[in-house]
């Protein structure tokens, strides 16, 4: 009973240290999206390079696809972009860009100088589609399955590890699921 006087505070202290230590590796900016496993919000947007040609959410049904939110003013997108270009060459999954709150000329110039990994880019000039997708820190990416359901969200830039350990396995799994439908 007597030694409890010393071990109990020590145990509480160590518990506190453990929690605070864990806290060092948590990013408060990464707020889990409530949209995971929900149908992707509808949109109908013009393409970045083709005003007049629009793409709707429902045009995408039947295939697994990745929606990557980017902007020419976004610094972190520049870090991520070479990875996406590289990933797009693997031809595992079509990538569509969502050019968020940008100007057409700036967005197109950006793609021309850094490479274009996208099948097509959607032009979200006023950011309304971004709001519907709960975008708050560009870049963000959404992996959407063949039924139009959001299955994964990457908040912030992709890292090589995230692509290898999360994105690629999930793409393969979702494509397998789609094959059975």
């Amino acid at each position, binding site marked *: 009973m007597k030694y409890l006087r010393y071990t109990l505070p020590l145990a509480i202290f160590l518990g506190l240290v453990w929690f605070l230590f864990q806290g060092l590796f948590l990013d408060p900016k990464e707020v889990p999206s409530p949209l995971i496993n929900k149908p992707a919000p509808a949109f109908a947007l013009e393409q970045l390079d083709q005003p007049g040609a629009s793409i709707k959410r429902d045009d995408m049904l039947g295939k697994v696809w990745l929606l990557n939110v980017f902007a020419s003013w976004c610094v972190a997108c520049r870090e991520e972009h070479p990875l996406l270009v590289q990933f797009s060459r693997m031809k595992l999954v079509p990538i569509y860009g969502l050019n968020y709150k940008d100007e057409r000329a700036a967005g197109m110039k950006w793609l021309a100088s850094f490479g274009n990994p996208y099948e097509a880019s959607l032009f979200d000039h006023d950011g309304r589609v971004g*709001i519907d997708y709960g975008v708050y820190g560009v870049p963000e990416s959404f992996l959407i399955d063949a039924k139009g359901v959001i299955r994964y969200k990457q908040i912030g830039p992709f890292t090589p590890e995230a692509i290898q350990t999360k994105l690629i396995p999930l793409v393969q799994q979702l494509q397998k699921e789609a094959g059975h439908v």
Partner: protein
Amino acid sequence: MFDRRLASSRLLAVVLAALLLALGLGRAAANEAAPAAADPALEARMLAITAELRCMVCQNQTIADSHADLAVDLRQQVREMLQKGMSDQQITDYMTQRYGDFVLYRPPFKGSTALLWIGPGVMLVAGLSVLVLVLRRRSRMAPEQFEADEAPTPESERDPA
């Protein structure tokens, strides 16, 4: 990771612009002031709703306070929703559908937020019960078990353990 640098440089630009306006160097009305004049009641309702919502970009500010681009857009969104006659509840639901309960400064009580709500109460009760236990045990102790009030020498003040 995110565009914090950009956000902060934009914030700086906004602050500088506000200072210039305050100094009377820029007489043009800020574009956000116009709707307030158009319908003060609607603007007040919009500010009341957005004061309860967290800005996801600068997380310790409300959407009503923040100068982040997203907050400006969301204030406009709330204005338009109010013009359409939507209720406060419909607007907060719209926000939680997109950003989750985290967007609410007063999140609802449910499984995932239970610890948040009852945690402080549990800690308080635990602390008080330890205090009561200790005090009770001491009140039952015989007077000889306590140290003398006045220590005769400095050495005797030290805890022998």
